[in-house]
């Protein structure tokens, strides 16, 4: 090695050398590992729309308002979590030369404590690319089968066996979209004709049957496809705020009686739901949270809002409203007994509320660039 010059050294060293006292010890170089996830740990799916070549999932502790780490993922990748809390799955698209070259799509399993990749399975290069949402990547059969929504623009679902770590099938769902878990080895897709398509799989992940369930009348009202879920029941909402719930985990799936988020008076003021994942449910509180805005209009269904309306899921009554300090775009309620309501705002902040009292506990500002939704265990 060549000798490197010393700048301004002599005087400083002289000053330091005669000073008495213990010195701080040398420190090893290490790597953090997270504890087992608790039910509040949050995973923010960030598309990084400013460049949109890779994205990231940012992991935070919303109780301590602490940044825990991140994983870099593929172009517009959706994500989901395993029930045992051990794995974060992402459905990634990569190109060999950044934004161009050879396309490779993979299902990637990331360890939720090391935030390192565990394994990947190459999947057909046709997964849907869109503003990412929850039901384009899901798990069924006790997390054994992963379902990935494809759009080419023909629609289908890729089935991956996460134990065999292999693609075991692809199921066409013409005229329908997404893959909502609907029983042990069944999923539902929502269709342009107003039906739900229910597809059953056998042990090998192959289709063993399909049925159509009339769900809504598309000539009367369209449902936003980004639903909330509790105990086998999915809650969809129409542009005008009518809740259409459907029990898909019952042996015989059943559409429930619609009800409305808005009273007649509120409807006159054009209160409507808006945002991206604009619905959330806390099972413990038995509450539905909905992002609502006044003066809605044709096209306001993705507008952010500072108003969260809270509904009792049994009585369908509005029991509270929560005012967010920042306009929110997506909600998530944690699934535990001390639930938090989490809201992503349009400036990239994560707003944390007590889901029962509605109290604003704080905001992690600038935690995301352009995050469409977030996950909790």
């Amino acid at each position, binding site marked *: 090695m060549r000798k490197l010059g010393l700048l301004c050294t002599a005087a400083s060293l002289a000053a330091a050398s005669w000073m008495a006292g213990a010195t701080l010890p040398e420190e090893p170089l290490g790597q953090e590992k997270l504890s087992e996830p608790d039910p509040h740990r949050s995973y923010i799916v960030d598309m990084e729309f400013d*460049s949109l070549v890779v994205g990231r999932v940012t992991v935070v502790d919303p109780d301590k308002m602490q940044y825990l780490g991140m994983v870099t993922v593929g*172009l517009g990748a959706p994500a989901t979590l395993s029930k045992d809390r051990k794995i974060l799955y992402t459905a990634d698209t990569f190109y060999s030369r950044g934004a*161009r070259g050879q396309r490779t799509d993979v299902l990637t399993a990331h360890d939720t404590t090391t935030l390192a990749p565990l394994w990947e399975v190459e999947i057909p290069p046709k997964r849907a*690319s*869109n503003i990412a949402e929850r039901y384009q990547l899901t798990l069924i059969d006790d997390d054994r089968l992963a379902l990935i929504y494809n*759009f080419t623009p023909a629609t289908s679902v890729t089935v991956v066996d996460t134990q065999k770590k292999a693609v075991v099938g692809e199921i066409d769902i013409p005229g329908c979209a997404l893959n909502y878990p609907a029983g042990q080895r069944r999923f539902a897709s929502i269709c*342009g004709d107003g039906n739900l398509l229910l597809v059953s799989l056998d042990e090998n992940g192959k289709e063993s049957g399909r049925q159509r369930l009339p769900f809504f009348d598309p000539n009367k009202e369209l*449902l936003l496809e980004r639903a909330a879920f509790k105990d086998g029941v999915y809650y969809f909402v129409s542009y005008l705020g009518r809740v259409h719930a459907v029990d898909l985990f019952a042996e015989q799936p059943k559409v429930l009686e619609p009800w409305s988020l808005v009273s007649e008076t509120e409807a006159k003021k054009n209160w409507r739901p808006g945002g991206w994942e604009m619905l959330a449910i806390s099972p413990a509180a038995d509450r539905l949270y909905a992002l609502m805005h006044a003066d809605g*209009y044709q096209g306001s269904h993705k507008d952010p809002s500072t108003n969260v309306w809270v509904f009792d899921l049994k009585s369908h009554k509005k029991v509270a409203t929560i005012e967010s300090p920042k306009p929110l775009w997506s909600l998530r309620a944690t699934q535990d007994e001390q639930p938090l309501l989490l809201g992503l705002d349009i400036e990239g902040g994560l707003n944390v509320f007590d889901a029962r009292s509605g109290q604003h506990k704080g905001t992690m500002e600038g935690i995301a660039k352009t995050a469409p939704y977030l996950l909790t265990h």
Partner: protein
Amino acid sequence: MRFLDHMFERSTRLVAARTSRRSALARLGTLLVGGSLLPLLPIDRVARAAEAGKSGDPGDPTACDYWRYCAIDGYLCTCCGGTINTCPPGAEPSAVTWVGTCRNPADGKDYIIAYNDCCGKGACNRCLCNRNESDEPMYRPFANNDINWCLGAKHMSYNCTVARISGVAK
């Protein structure tokens, strides 16, 4: 993919409702997509102004409130080195597209607007605009602006979106 393109356009005839809120929405446009605040950059407004204000086609094609953008979601190619119907240099036009129907304030006619994405490069990151006047859910994909329509190009990577006239909604 041209035949697909043609078929998709014809299969949808959606008319945007216009309300007095359009300008408010235009302002919101920069906020909505992806949930973050990104700047609408006015840099070459002046340079592009010559294109705009054409007789019968009023407005500024680099502004989110331009009439053709009633169902757009993305970066305006007019700010990204392209024009209202051409992709920037090197960005691959995707033939498959979604459409909106927007009313031209000059002639009062409802035009079918094809929002082709330009692809094969990272995001332009200029003039983000999101308007949902005739946007429908993902199970009606050809009226849905949340989808990355680069699927009709060689690469899925998304650069910006054009808004070309594809016919009149008769």
